[in-house]
């Protein structure tokens, strides 16, 4: 079971790096979907106790929302907006990957330094959680398109989810449901907003919306 968890965590790290490095929007959505799927499965494997119905329900919900519903919504927004690539991000692909690796190193250092790293395979879980969160933040900060930013928020939410599993073990049901619901509504609203922004402005470049100030 430990081996499986570690495999999943390593896959999460890889998806993060792919998200950071990629610039095809359909690909990005797919990577985020895979990451959501992995993150949703993790609670099932992370704890040695028996599979309760609650745990299964939670995992199923997380997988359904993060792995299926969000990607579908975003894919639809993408088709309507009719764009394929993240052109000219603030930070280029190569440098982004470099930043991603730095963030990974920083996450490991941070979780050591915080002194809350636990024994066993959980040692890996905490830095991966941090890394995922920071990846999300980095996506939000460094990309032009509103859609990539929504993806950034989703990735950040995955990170929070992982951190929650690592620190609290079984995240209180209500809290997790709340976070999921928040993310769902956020994606939903952003999807609609992107659609409207695109229709009004003929682009969904957040950078250009700075003109709207005042």
């Amino acid at each position: 079971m430990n081996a499986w968890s570690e495999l999943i965590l390593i896959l999460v790290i890889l998806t993060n790096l792919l998200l950071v490095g990629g610039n095809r929007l359909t690909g990005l959505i797919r990577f985020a979907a895979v990451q959501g799927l992995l993150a949703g499965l993790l609670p099932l494997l992370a704890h040695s106790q028996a599979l309760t119905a609650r745990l299964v329900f939670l995992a199923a919900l997380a997988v359904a929302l993060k792995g299926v519903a969000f990607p579908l919504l975003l894919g639809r927004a993408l088709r309507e907006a009719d764009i394929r690539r993240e052109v000219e991000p603030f930070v280029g692909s190569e440098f982004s990957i470099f930043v991603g690796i730095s963030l990974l190193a920083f996450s490991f250092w941070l979780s050591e330094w915080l002194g809350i790293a636990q024994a066993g395979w959980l040692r890996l879980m905490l830095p991966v959680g941090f890394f995922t969160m920071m990846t999300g933040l980095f996506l939000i900060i460094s990309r032009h398109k509103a859609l990539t930013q929504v993806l950034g928020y989703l990735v950040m939410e995955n990170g929070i989810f992982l951190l929650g599993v690592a620190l609290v073990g079984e995240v209180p049901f209500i809290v997790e449901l709340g976070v999921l619901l928040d993310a769902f509504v956020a994606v939903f609203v952003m999807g609609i907003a992107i659609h409207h922004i695109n229709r009004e402005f003929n682009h969904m470049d957040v950078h250009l919306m700075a003109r709207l100030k005042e």
Partner: protein
Amino acid sequence: MAWLLLSLGILLASGLAAWVLRRESIGLAGALVGCAAGLASAAAPLMTGRSCALSLPWSVPYGSFHLEIDALSAFFLLPLFLVGALSAVYAYGYLAPYRKSQPLGRTWFFYNALVASMALVVTARNAVLFLTAWEAMALTSFFLVVFESERKDAREAGWSYLVAGHLGTAFLIILFVWLGSRAGSLEFERFGNLDSRAAGMLFLLALIGFGTKAGFFPLHVWLPEAHPAAPSHVSALMSGVMIKMGIYGLLRIYICLGPGPAWWGWLMVAVGVVSGVLGVLFALAQSDLKRLLAYSSVENIGIIALGLGLGMLGRSLGIPALAALGFAGGLLHLLNHALFKSLLFLGAGAVAHSAGTRDIEHLGGLAKAMPWTAGFFLLGAVAICGLPPLNGFVGEFLILLGAYHGACAVGHLAAAGAAAIAAIALIGGLAAACFTRAFGIVFLGQPRRRHTESIHEVGWSMRIPMAVLAASCVAIGLGAPWLFASADRVLGPLGVGAGSWAGSGARGCLLGLTLLWAGLLAVALAAAGFRRWLLGGRPIGEGGTWDCGYDRPSERMQYTASSFAQPLISLFAPVLRTRRELATPTGYYPGPADLATTTPDIASRRLFSPAYEAMQALLARFRWLQHGYLQLYVLQLAVTLLVLLIWKLG
């Protein structure tokens, strides 16, 4: 107490019903019944001096639903409900032209809620409840000020009113939190027992916080903006009653703090003199009738502050007669001002309603078309100038008597007494000039613009409230000597014992004067009757006014409002700083010439505008933070959080 609760309930419920059901008549009926019930609640404490209280638990932290009507509260409830009811009747006629264009139920809700919140302000005995009512009062009146929100000036006036009100409330919150932290409770009855430095600071906070609402100079800047913008019945209620809530709050805090050192009284006297003189000077320079009345409110608040300041001096220095005369004069003038100022605002509203303009320069000769309004306005003008035998005289007379008494009693009070006497004399003279101008230009002579010819008298619903207010002015003016017993009860909470009047001779003086006025009035009436009898049966012709031998006088050759005020304005030019834009005629065959004068408010121009500009300049330096890039906002947030994390753990 049951009457008060009934009144509050009826006012709020009827207001809400008027809004929801869109029936104005419900709002009017509710206002009348609610105000009548409110008057009934004020009657017992005023008649007997017994206060009644009600205290219910309230779920708000530190709050309790603690109400009490003592004689002082009842004294403030009296003008509130009287003016509230009369203005409501007036509103029914006044709002008629707006009826087609917009639903008015909302206005009635805000009006009734304003009356209810003011009643709560003067009866609340818990700071949380008091501030809640205070805020409700500020908000409901704000919505009434922006009644004509489609007009830009009304919106701007509303904003300046809202900002000023909240700045004042900020001081009040500090005041009550301070008082509460010392007392360990936010109940008014627990406040007090403070060392003198804290008490002094608290008094200053109250003076600024409540003074903003009352309109002390230079905190008055919202007044000349908000009053002209509001509908006239609201102006009447706001100027007649609402600004007095500031005075009430100040007095209530004064009661909590105790007599205090003498400088409180000196400060109040100084504030009163400055507000009074500057208020009336600026009133003299205005050409908007309601703006003029708003500045005149500043003046009258000054007179009230002067009286209260003398009363505080009397308390601090242990001169009971001075305390009694000062407080009584101030409070009586407060009641009087509520009556004649609302009368004048209603009159001004009638003029605006019928002539379509409030600009004095355009009006003229309205007395022929609107004899009733002219008569009521004249009566109010005479009263506000402090001329006998009307009520304005009585209040100012008591203050003058107090000043004289104080000046004679203690040597170093002579300066205060003399200053007060000189100030009231100056204010009275200037007020007479100001209201001669207002009445003379608006109602006498010939219309100054052609379009004022279609003017007609206003309807009964607008005339009756003015008649009642005018009658009250006369009644208080002539009935003053018989008000002393009630005055004792009202002054009780202020620490003035019954019988403090002894030795001041106020009562004897007033009685004598009243008999004199009654006699003169009788003689005048008899003379008028005799004249009528003499003229009976003879033909009476009407001719033009003497025209200096000029063949074809036109209405443009009359005195204008500016020319009437010009000598006084140029005398006080260093204070007023009136701007003149004069285009003199040139050439051998002179063309048209032009003169325009405006008198912007000195406090807003010299004090508040520079302060706001400095603040804006300071804050503009942080504008680079608002760059509009979402990415950078998130980066800033992330970096801040990271720095905080490292700082906290490092």
